[in-house]
């Protein structure tokens, strides 16, 4: 009987592909099921936002920051505003801080809903995605009432936020939170306790603690690998020191084949973070003081010449903003160091010897979005 010869194929996954979470291309060397290499190729969504920042004024650049990560636009707005406010020594009001935190936590809930829903869809469960989108629609309506937009909010300004909340808006949000918490249990029954999902995600694409720190993993990815680190707790900013919440960490809980740092851990961290965000929102609405929501800033902001690096906890991890100013009214250099960029750097190393379907589960569990990688 002649020996069966297999050859390796060089296949193209993307850039148009429903499971790569945006336009990302992978060049995959595989013999059918098991890959020997998966090399990512990025740049399809590069819009040179950093170069545009050198031409726009500080105030006028805010809509561009939405597009750095359009699923967590509030967080990007606030990170940029915080960097400019720190360098130019602008202090904002307490009400402005609380409104920012409310907006960021609502954004965290809807971004995680989308991440968890599309993770389920990528491994084959289509129904939870629709449930997640239904909840997302309710929050989109609430945010539209707050700032007029559903995706790219342009809500924060240098000096606070642009609009205050409408009358009775806080009651509407609290009503939504009351009916949202039992729905997280519904998710648990559909996805988390599902044996097929646990077998698909448990033990797959394990990122050890040393690798996670070495490759600068951030956010839920880092916490899924067992490192208890959250910038809101450990390097707090804004009003987070006054709020009380837990930081969930991955513990290898996918049953007997679960390992700390696998896809299931990253998924569970996101589910738990959603209920922590609900807790934070309730506390914010109790504590928000009356007052102004925006301070007066000069039309042309001129920070002193120098630089600063601000880290904030965005939904995909630590969004670092490095701002260099030369004393004029336009930034000299602005860099966004995003969580998805670091997460992509490790895919090539971990994906050797993985199956193609596991690569899809790995990318979905890292929750990478193309605009954050390419900017």
């Amino acid at each position, binding site marked *: 009987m002649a020996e069966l010869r297999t050859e390796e194929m060089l296949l193209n996954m993307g850039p148009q592909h429903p499971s790569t979470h945006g336009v990302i291309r992978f060049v995959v060397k595989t013999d059918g099921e098991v890959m020997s290499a998966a090399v990512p190729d990025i740049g399809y969504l590069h819009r040179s936002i950093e170069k545009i920042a050198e031409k726009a004024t500080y105030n006028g650049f805010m809509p561009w920051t939405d597009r750095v990560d359009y699923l967590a636009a509030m967080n990007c707005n606030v990170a940029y505003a915080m960097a400019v406010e720190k360098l130019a020594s602008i202090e904002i009001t307490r009400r402005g801080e609380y409104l920012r935190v409310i907006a960021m936590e609502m954004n965290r809930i809807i971004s995680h809903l989308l991440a968890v829903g599309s993770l389920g869809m990528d491994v084959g469960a289509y129904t939870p995605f629709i449930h997640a989108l239904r909840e997302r629609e309710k929050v989109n309506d609430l945010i539209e009432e707050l700032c007029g937009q559903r995706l790219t909010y342009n809500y924060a300004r240098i000096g606070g936020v642009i609009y205050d909340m409408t009358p009775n808006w806080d009651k509407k949000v609290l009503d939504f939170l009351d009916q949202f918490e039992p729905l997280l249990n519904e998710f648990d029954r559909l996805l988390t306790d599902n044996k097929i999902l646990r077998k698909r995600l448990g033990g797959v694409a394990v990122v050890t603690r040393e690798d996670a720190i070495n490759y600068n993993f951030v956010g839920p990815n880092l916490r899924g690998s067992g490192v208890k680190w959250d910038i809101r707790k450990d390097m707090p900013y804004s009003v987070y020191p006054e709020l009380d919440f837990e930081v969930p960490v991955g513990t290898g809980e996918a049953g007997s084949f679960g390992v700390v740092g696998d896809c299931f851990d990253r998924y569970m961290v996101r589910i738990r973070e959603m209920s922590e965000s609900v807790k934070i929102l309730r506390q914010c609405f109790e504590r928000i003081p009356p007052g102004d929501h925006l301070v007066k800033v000069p039309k042309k902001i001129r920070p*002193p010449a120098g630089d*600063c690096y601000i880290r904030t906890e965005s939904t995909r991890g630590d969004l670092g903003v*490095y701002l260099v100013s030369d004393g004029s009214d336009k930034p000299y250099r602005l860099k966004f160091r995003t969580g998805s960029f670091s997460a992509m750097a490790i895919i090539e190393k971990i994906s050797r010897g993985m199956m193609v379907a596991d690569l899809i589960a790995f990318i979905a569990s890292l929750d990478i979005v193309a605009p954050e990688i390419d900017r």
Partner: protein
Amino acid sequence: MTVEEIAKILCEHFKGLQIEVVPGAKNAVSGIQTGDPAVIIPAEKIREICNTLKVMDQFAFDCLSSLTAVDRKDRFEVVYHLFSYKNRHSLTLKVNLPRGGNQPQRGVEGEAPSGLAGGGGDASPSIETVESLWGVANWLEREVYDLFGIKFDNHSDLRRIMLPDDWVGHPLRKDYKEEVDYHGISTTRPALLQ
């Protein structure tokens, strides 16, 4: 540890090297420091100093948070932001590289055009890679190479990351001029208002 203390210990370890601390920007009116202080180190010693910063217990900088470059018109500044999960302190390292000529770099095989008169320094400045210390430096350095044209010696895979492989020029340089077209697609459009 503060930046000044770290710089002091580094000076003791690396005697004879020129290590200076730059204070952060100050508010002109109140005098409060608003920017970050930084430590400037010479380019040839980057790998040794980063190794010391990663390995020594009192520093333990196990995470490279960001690696980027700034084009000051007479030189390039490569900026490293380090962070330690164990000791919870951070550090900004800056390295000054001489600016090469103003010729566009043609992809990876770019050589300086012959007959380059004057100018001083290489056509593309270079610095040693820190990829073996922090794995994320692989992609971060590729991005700096792609957008600024700074080469990293001993990098395992130095090629463009975001722009197409046959792109001409390094966009984030201050003197970057776009080519007239790319594969026949024009980069300008006629004025809409005549």
